[in-house]
């Protein structure tokens, strides 16, 4: 079977998907990055490769997420795309007329505004990670509630407690205070969901024209409490796509399909990347006062990628095939 591989290497999770030529999802895997991105990709490829042993022909591979360049280097990608575009592409596929995408992941959150199927505006959180997956994880653990049940518990609340949500540290103090005042756990959780939504709308989505259809995706979309809080705050239904948790990876796979549509052969190195030996290390270049920290990726004893240098001396010393990362204008048409 011919497939396209999409990888979203994020700060918290690493997702891989396989789409067939009709862009239908064949398989997907959601892993914790756990601070070891290369191993996460290898694990993902090992599992996917094992499930479909020998039956897959990868025609194209795309990567996205904060670790997209590293992922591209390890697997041999045909396209490397930022998360905004990848999420928008996937969302448009799932909900064709989408106007607003709310995306909340492990450590960042974004809003994407579309018009007639084209992104016209976007924003990402800058100074604050309150309300993202990592914070919810932390609060769930602190309150001893499995994160999977967090949203359902919020929905049981009849009168959400008001939680100060501007800053995650203060939100936590406020929650502890409210617990000690005797508020019910459900009410506190529901209050937290509302506080985080308020925070998101005031910080990430400030000044943006939010119009339906509104799609909510990213790992935090699993939390029904947040979804309901969004619906309450916006006054419109909020759609959570079926594969809300791997939308970035789906977008990367769709973009890979688009990239190789001209018939070019894929640069994908194959599923046996999973068993190759990868080492990364870094050194501080002392050749000028910039003292750049150069990172290098070593595959089976051979340096396959370097970056971090401002002058380009080190990165240019490795000639890895470059995936399509930007539009190169071929000429006036």
């Amino acid at each position, binding site marked *: 079977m011919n497939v396209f591989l999409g990888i979203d290497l994020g700060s918290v999770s690493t997702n891989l998907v396989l789409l067939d030529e009709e862009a239908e999802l064949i398989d997907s895997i959601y892993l914790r990055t756990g601070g070891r991105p290369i191993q996460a990709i290898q694990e993902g490829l090992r599992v996917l490769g094992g499930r479909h042993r020998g039956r897959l022909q990868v025609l194209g591979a795309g990567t996205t997420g904060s670790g997209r360049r590293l992922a591209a280097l390890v697997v041999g990608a045909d396209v490397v795309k*930022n998360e905004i*575009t990848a999420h928008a592409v996937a969302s448009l596929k799932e909900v064709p007329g989408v106007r607003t995408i709310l995306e909340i992941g492990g450590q960042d959150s974004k809003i994407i505004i579309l018009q007639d199927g084209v992104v016209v505006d976007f924003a990402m959180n800058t100074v604050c990670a309150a309300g993202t997956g990592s914070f919810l994880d932390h609060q769930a653990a602190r309150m001893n509630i499995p994160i999977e049940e967090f949203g359902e518990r919020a929905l049981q609340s009849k009168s959400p407690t008001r939680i100060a949500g501007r800053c995650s540290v203060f939100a936590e103090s406020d929650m502890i205070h409210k617990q000690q005042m005797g508020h019910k756990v459900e009410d506190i959780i529901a209050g937290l969901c509302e506080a985080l939504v308020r925070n998101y709308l005031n910080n990430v989505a400030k000044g943006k024209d939010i119009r339906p259809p509104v799609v909510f995706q990213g790992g935090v979309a699993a939390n029904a409490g947040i979804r309901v809080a969004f619906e309450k705050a916006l006054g419109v239904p909020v759609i959570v796509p079926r594969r809300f948790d791997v939308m970035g990876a789906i977008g990367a796979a769709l973009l890979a399909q688009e990239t190789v549509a001209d018939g070019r052969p894929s640069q994908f190195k194959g599923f046996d990347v999973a068993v190759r030996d990868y080492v990364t290390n870094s050194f501080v270049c002392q050749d000028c006062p910039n003292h750049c920290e150069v990172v290098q990726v070593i595959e089976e004893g051979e340096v396959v990628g370097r970056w971090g240098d401002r002058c380009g001396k080190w*990165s240019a010393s490795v000639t890895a095939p470059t995936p399509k990362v*930007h539009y190169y204008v071929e000429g*006036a*048409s």
Partner: protein
Amino acid sequence: MKITFPRMGTSYIAIADLFRGLGNEVISPPPITKRTLDLGTRYSPEFACLPFKILMGTYLEGIARGADTIVSSGGVGPCRAGFYMEMHRRILWDLGYEVQTITLEPPKGHLSDLVQQLRRLIHVPLSQVWDAVRFAWKKLELLDIIEERAYYLRPRELVRGSTTRAFRKCLSIVRGAKDPEELAEAKSQVEEILASVPINPEAVPLKVGLVGEIYVVLEPFANGEVAETLGELGVEVHRSIYLTKWTRENAFLDFFRIPADRDAKRLARPYLDEMIGGHGIINVGETVIYSRNGFDGVIHLAPFTCIPEIVAKGILTKVSADLEFPVMTLYLDEHTGKEGVRTRLEAFVDLIGKKREKEQGVAW
């Protein structure tokens, strides 16, 4: 007297020559590095803006190399920068560095104003002053031209990184020029080097204007190398601020002739008719100009906590909606990661690219 001064883009090369030509010993400000910023952040108030922190670090590094006098510029209008030299001095004195400070207003009017302000720095006969100023000015112009030229070449280059390498080579040649003859020689060398960068002359890159607070627009370290990043993403960058722009009647790239500030002010008027300090008004007006001149979008660079730019950002949201013209503000501070800037720029380039594709039906 050993002088150091802020480093802002490539201008330090010419400014060092100027002070030297006026008979001073000069400690050229070292390149801004992570260390500069760490040092500056440690000794700055937390809510001071990024330029304040970088300058703090630059001064401390200059002092460590022997500087005992700091020359800096004042601010324009209600912007905290007008107060910075004094703040820096007090912090430095508290740290035990009793340096002298000389505050100059940025050369906004005629050259003669600048000369007048420079009097404390002049230790040579008047006849030599003119030579020194003219030489430094010529050098500054050449540096601006090189930068402008690099913006043009980068999205068209056939070998990624070749423009940036040529650009660095040009800077070191210009830096080495000691007198007008050497500068003339440097100029022809530079032109040769830039002309030899292989490009695709038929490319029609996306065009993006850079507006914002002057320091973060001019100093690549402060803006996460936004111009270089955009260039390598295939975007032709145009900057609204050049230190020498008003003297260049015939711009090196003629079709890029720079609109005068008063046009910018006039065009900003429907949105903002009030001096808000810094480059607030100009940024609003320049954005209108870029949209009229067929640009694909504008990147607005703002130091985090900068009041003039916060006001401008609010107004730019309206300008952007009215003109259906993409504008993205990047807030910059010591916590800004280059990767975060890159991600937003990539997404912005996708956005404006799709927009152009839709409007013109041109695949690019």
